[in-house]
């Protein structure tokens, strides 16, 4: 049997070395890993399983969407600010680690020397939370000329929260928008989300990063094909072992699984009846016939109202 998507987890190391360690409220070690995905021609959902290392962890009260930080060079966390037509993107995010928003990543929209302001909902104001700050994983981190991506031809498709679609390519050795000129390597891939990849030949994607040690809450939007991946770089995930039963709105939200061999054939619809994941006739899957989400791949989630899909950390 030909296996078109092959993943080798080369190494997972536990390191106790992050700049954030000195500021840590709860000290812990990042679990760092390296994965290699070998893809043959075709269409894939690709979702990075790693996040970047913590730059900072701390706690504090959210005041007017702003959190205080110390001992951090905040200027490097501000959104990019090009004046030449290049899109400006957030470079870093705050992930809330406690409370009702635990697992949600909010972009850092502005900074001062000792604060970061985030794109958070107003009901987070006044809450005392622990949080981590990380740089985004970007398209430029994942898709490089060394990956074997064909310039002008192999396409990276992103579905935006407003329902629009963005297409990215490699051109001249860098990631660009679909005008093949405007730089776009700094386009973020949010934790737990992903892209659609169309490739004409063999591509090898190598990822290095930290295994996420806390849950991720991936926002999903109505009218959008939301891509939701997994967080485990070393194992596939059965739908029955996932949090989809409680994350998907009962009978309303759907997740669609496609084949991960380049053919992108529809494999399964996944719904929830509130207690179990089910097929589209609302018959519960059991672990023996459960759809399996490949590591590094993901699902297309469609919802009638904004919500979150919770992804558990693979670190027990």
């Amino acid at each position: 049997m030909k296996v078109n998507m092959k993943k080798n987890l080369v190494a997972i190391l536990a390191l106790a070395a992050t700049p954030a360690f000195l500021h840590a409220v709860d000290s812990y070690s990042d679990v760092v890993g390296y994965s290699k995905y070998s893809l043959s021609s075709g269409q894939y959902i690709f979702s990075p399983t790693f996040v970047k290392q913590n730059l900072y962890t701390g706690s504090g009260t959210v005041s007017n969407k702003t959190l205080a930080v110390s001992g951090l060079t905040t200027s490097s966390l501000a959104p990019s600010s090009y004046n030449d037509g290049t899109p400006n993107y957030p470079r870093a995010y705050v992930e809330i680690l406690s409370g009702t928003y635990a697992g949600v990543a909010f972009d850092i929209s502005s900074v001062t020397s000792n604060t970061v302001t985030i794109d958070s909902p107003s009901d987070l104001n006044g809450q005392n939370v622990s949080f981590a700050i990380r740089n985004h994983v970007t398209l430029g981190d994942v898709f490089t000329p060394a990956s074997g991506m064909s310039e002008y031809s192999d396409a990276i498709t992103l579905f935006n929260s407003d329902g629009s679609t963005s297409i990215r390519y490699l051109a001249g050795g860098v990631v660009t928008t679909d005008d093949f000129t405007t730089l776009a390597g700094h386009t973020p891939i949010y934790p737990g989300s992903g892209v659609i990849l169309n490739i004409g030949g063999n591509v090898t994607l190598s990822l290095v990063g930290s295994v996420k040690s806390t849950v991720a809450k991936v926002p999903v939007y109505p009218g959008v094909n939301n891509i939701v991946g997994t967080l485990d770089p070393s194992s596939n995930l059965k739908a029955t072992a996932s949090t989809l039963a409680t994350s998907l709105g009962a009978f309303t939200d759907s997740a669609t699984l496609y084949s991960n061999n380049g053919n992108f054939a529809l494999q399964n619809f996944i719904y929830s009846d509130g207690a179990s994941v089910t097929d589209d006739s609302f018959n519960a899957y059991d672990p023996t016939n459960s759809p399996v989400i490949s590591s590094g791949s993901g699902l297309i989630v469609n919802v009638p109202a904004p919500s979150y899909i919770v992804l558990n950390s693979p670190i027990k």
Partner: protein
Amino acid sequence: MKNKRIMKMWALFLFLPLVVTSLTQAAISITIASPNSTSGLILDSKSQIVTSGFARVGKITGTIDLGKKDPTFSNYQYWDSIFVDVNDPTTGTGTTLGGGGSTPAAWNFSSAGALSSSSTGVLSATFPQNTQLYIWAFKVSGKTLTTTSAGSSSVSIPALDATDFTNGVEWALLTADEWKAPADLGTISLVISQITAADTIQSPIFGSDLGASVTMIPEPSTSVLMSIGLALLLIKGRKTKALKGFNS
């Protein structure tokens, strides 16, 4: 057990409309990749940069009649009647439905002769996976595509008229083995340099392959004039040769 089944049926009955509304329409994206000579440009019949005109992208639903390759108004009407555009409204004119995708401004030729950018939201119901895709490119003055968003009811593609053709239109009809509609949610890039003699499909259909780039074909009058010119040159060459032979 029976009660549980009845409850499940009730749940189905109550929530089925919501299930239907949660599904998002399947769509694909299609890019033209012709930003520079590396990816290949669509040049005019004299291998010069095209700075006015536009490109249409779509599928062909009728006979590819090579007898209608010259850019004349009647031939245009033929091809237009069998060409379904990815960026035509689904409820557009004619009997065929368009792809409903967006129309980017960069599908009009730029001053550098480049074409780029993507039509997004193209319905995969109209362009199912592996549908052969074509670029129909025009060098024409005063006619441009109007940008539209996906799902727009506006027609973005200008209709050419007989006057355009009396003023000289050049065109190319292009395809390549790789130019096939992707699966739902995917993107295909139509790279001009992918047009090669090695293609199993006839490529280009109208036009000439220069390697990375391709050229359009000129209006028939220009073709005729060029042919006459070529014939005169040949005749002149023969006469000169004959005279040389006579003199020697």
